[in-house]
């Protein structure tokens, strides 16, 4: 059964409609990626799923419940977590406080200690920088913190918008490896990526979004070989 399902969603900003009937299905404990060109509507999709924007039509189902109109802060309580585009850290607060804030939802509050251990094992750099203001971290460290803060939320479904943007290839590899580890630990992941090749390489399943509509979907291994995907998104 799909743990998260987006059915025929339409959404946008005020008068401007961006999504025109897109869909998405996340299988439990799998890594799914959502790719597409700039401005295709990927971020809009995630914001709509989280409840930061209200859908114009269509429905969103999480663990068998219709959550289309549930506000963002309640979604976090349910275990639906977004690592937003541009990181959106609490720049004036310390690294530790950012992690603490990540664990604000009702599910995560009791598990701060366990999850803290988890993220410090995954990103030892953050432990070294615990008391530093998040705004003064390097770009890569900030991205680690954004992901770590997401993990602190004890997600059932973790959605990450642009994991690799602006990061050195070594770090991208390391972050992708940690995503796989998280999936193997039982977290369902939705990854939005510019880096289509790498995203498809580590994902189980993939969706291609184009001009606000779901264009192609399939097992990631097949999409990588798909002629249209190769021409349009991989530049091959």
């Amino acid at each position: 059964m799909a743990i998260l399902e987006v059915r025929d969603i339409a959404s946008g900003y005020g008068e401007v409609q961006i999504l025109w009937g897109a869909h998405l299905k996340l299988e439990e404990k799998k890594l799914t990626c959502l790719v597409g060109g700039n401005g295709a509507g990927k971020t809009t999709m995630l914001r709509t799923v989280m409840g930061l924007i209200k859908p114009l039509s269509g429905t969103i189902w999480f663990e068998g419940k219709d959550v289309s109109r549930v506000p963002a802060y309640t979604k976090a309580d349910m275990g639906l977590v977004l690592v937003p585009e541009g990181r959106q850290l609490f720049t004036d607060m310390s690294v530790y406080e950012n992690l603490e804030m990540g664990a604000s939802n009702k599910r995560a509050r009791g598990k701060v200690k366990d999850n803290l251990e988890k993220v410090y094992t995954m990103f030892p750099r953050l432990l070294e920088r615990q008391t530093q203001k998040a705004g003064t971290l390097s770009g890569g460290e900030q991205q680690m913190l954004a992901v770590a803060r997401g993990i602190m939320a004890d997600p059932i479904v973790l959605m990450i918008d642009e994991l690799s943007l602006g990061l050195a290839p070594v770090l991208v590899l390391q972050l992708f490896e940690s995503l796989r580890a998280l999936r193997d630990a039982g977290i369902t992941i939705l990854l939005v990526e510019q880096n289509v090749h790498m995203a498809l390489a580590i994902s189980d399943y993939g969706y291609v979004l184009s001009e606000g509509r779901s264009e192609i979907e399939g097992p990631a291994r097949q999409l990588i070989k798909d002629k249209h995907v190769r021409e349009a998104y991989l530049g091959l």
Partner: protein
Amino acid sequence: MNAGAILTSLVDGLLIGVVYGIAAMGLNLIWGVMRVINLAHGALISLGMFGVYLLFSGLGLNPYLALVLVALMGLLMGILIYAIAITRVINAPYLSTLLATFSINMIVIGLGTAAFTTTPRDTGFSLGNVEVGPLTLQGTRLIAALVTLIVTAILYTFLYRTRTGKYIRAVSNNRSAAELMGIPSSRILALSFGIGTMLAAIAGGLIATFFSFTILSGDVYQQKSFIIGVLGGLGNPLGALVGGLILGVLEGVLPLAMPNTWVPVIEFVLFILILLVKPSGLLGGKK
């Protein structure tokens, strides 16, 4: 003029400056957390004055016990104001929030004038004078400064050490990210407005223990709060305290050298100069 008199003016200025600081802190907190300039701040300070006055003169309550009640009422009132009015315009452009808080100001002052007229009131409360070496200080001012320092320490501990306090800082820093973390941001904003109002009420209540006042008196302290905000940097509670001290000292010492009526002129010139030279405030703070 002897050295004792100068020293007394200076220390008096410091004591009152601390109280200005707490008034400014209220304005500051609301601006820092939700980017609302609260034009009802002065009216709420006046209500704090009347609260202590009525509980003391009417019911015979000790003014400092009255202050605790006034603080609680301020907190509740602020939350109520947020829930009724501010929440409707919180995402609108600045002009809307300015108009909303200005309307609240007009309502409070209108009702207050009808109920209490504008005849000056005085609690007539006194704790006598305290002599320290060459200094003669009013007991009520000493206590007021002490209360303010305690409230500041509590506020700081609350904002930096407690979960809810950190939520306030998180919402202030990045509201939509806070929402994503599961923090109900509108409730946090309401609480912040409540705390800002509470600080205004405490400032008013303390001032009422040593100055006479009318329902319009709060306005002066609102203006001072703006100057202090610029001195200390908006969005920074400790900066407000320091800004208050600077202003207090100026008000203590300047009248020794020039007529009293010149003091506000100097203050506002300072205000404009700092805005021109360093808009983020003398002590930094948020842009």
